[in-house]
């Protein structure tokens, strides 16, 4: 497996590295802590209240507590097994409308990954978002574009899983990225990885699509 940085240097291409969505990491920590706290409280309740009550109450409370703790433990396992995902773009420029770019996804597991059955799927999504609605309710978000991304190559060396993804930004189907005070248009690349022996996991990368047409689109239009 050729190192992507060296490969890009050899081809004279600058490399832009985009790390995993910090928001995902934050949500994972919140999820782990919240489910663990709820599970522990439910177990305590089951032991304190349920022991003196009817058996079905004890069983119900205990069952819910068990499931909650199991979810927390699974989230911890996902957290521990997979390292931080990385996405390499072969340019320091933002993506453009009509662009067709091969990006490289890389994820390091903490341990060997069996290469025979690694499956990677990816989707490109665009969303419109209003931040802080007028009635002080939470932000609202609407997905306006969702398309599968071609996975052109998957490679596993030791504990590193790597995949090339062909990202095609539509010309008209969705607006480019926009960041205003109360409104936002954002793009996300979501990579779903399934590998035997390790938990399934999603990585989300925030991409920026500039309000310009890709060079290849201009060439095709001129032709």
């Amino acid at each position, binding site marked *: 497996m050729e190192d992507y940085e060296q490969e890009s240097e050899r081809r004279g291409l600058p490399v832009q590295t985009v790390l995993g969505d910090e928001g995902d990491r934050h949500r994972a920590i919140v999820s782990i802590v919240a489910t663990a706290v709820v599970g522990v409280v439910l177990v305590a309740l089951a032991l304190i209240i349920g022991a003196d009550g009817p058996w079905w109450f004890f069983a119900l409370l205990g069952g819910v507590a068990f499931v909650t703790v199991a979810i927390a433990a699974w989230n911890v396992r996902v957290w521990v097994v997979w390292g931080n995902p990385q996405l390499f773009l072969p340019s320091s420029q933002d993506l453009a409308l009509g662009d067709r770019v091969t990006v490289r996804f890389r994820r390091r597991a903490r341990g060997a990954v069996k290469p025979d059955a690694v499956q990677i799927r990816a989707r490109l999504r665009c969303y419109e978002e209003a931040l802080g609605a007028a009635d002080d309710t939470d932000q609202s978000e*609407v997905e306006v574009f969702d398309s599968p991304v071609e996975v052109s190559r998957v490679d596993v060396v030791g504990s590193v899983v790597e995949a090339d993804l062909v990202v095609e930004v539509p010309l008209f189907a969705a607006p480019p990225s926009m960041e205003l005070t109360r409104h936002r248009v954002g793009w996300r690349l979501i990579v779903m990885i399934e590998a035997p022996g390790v938990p399934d996991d999603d990585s989300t990368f925030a991409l920026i699509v500039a309000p310009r047409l890709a060079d290849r689109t201009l060439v095709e239009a001129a032709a």
Partner: protein
Amino acid sequence: MTPILHLDGDVGECGDTIVGTVVWSDTDAPPPRAAVRLRHRAEGAGLVDETDAADPVRWDERGRFSCPVPAVGPISFVGRLVSVSWSVEVVDLGSGAVLVSVPVTIVPAGGLALWAQRAAGPPAVT
């Protein structure tokens, strides 16, 4: 006192300029702090963002002006939740009054010809 605002074109690209002319009647003198500004307005979910794209500009002795369009946009669009519209305004910066406003469409850089094709629709079958 309402000036007449002529634009050389009502579609502009990100990173380009919107060019036009402000015409005042012979009897009306423009307010001393009148200027032209390019403004975009985003709406969605009951919220509004109104922003000047750049500092207001003055016209020359022939009434000509040129407003830069930011390279970062946003472009004009009507989405499922959010819509963005642009306008060129002649405004009295002293009172804040908008004297005249003309809508413009902002398209992605390099997209003028494609957008014009798209707006025209498919060629008619004869």
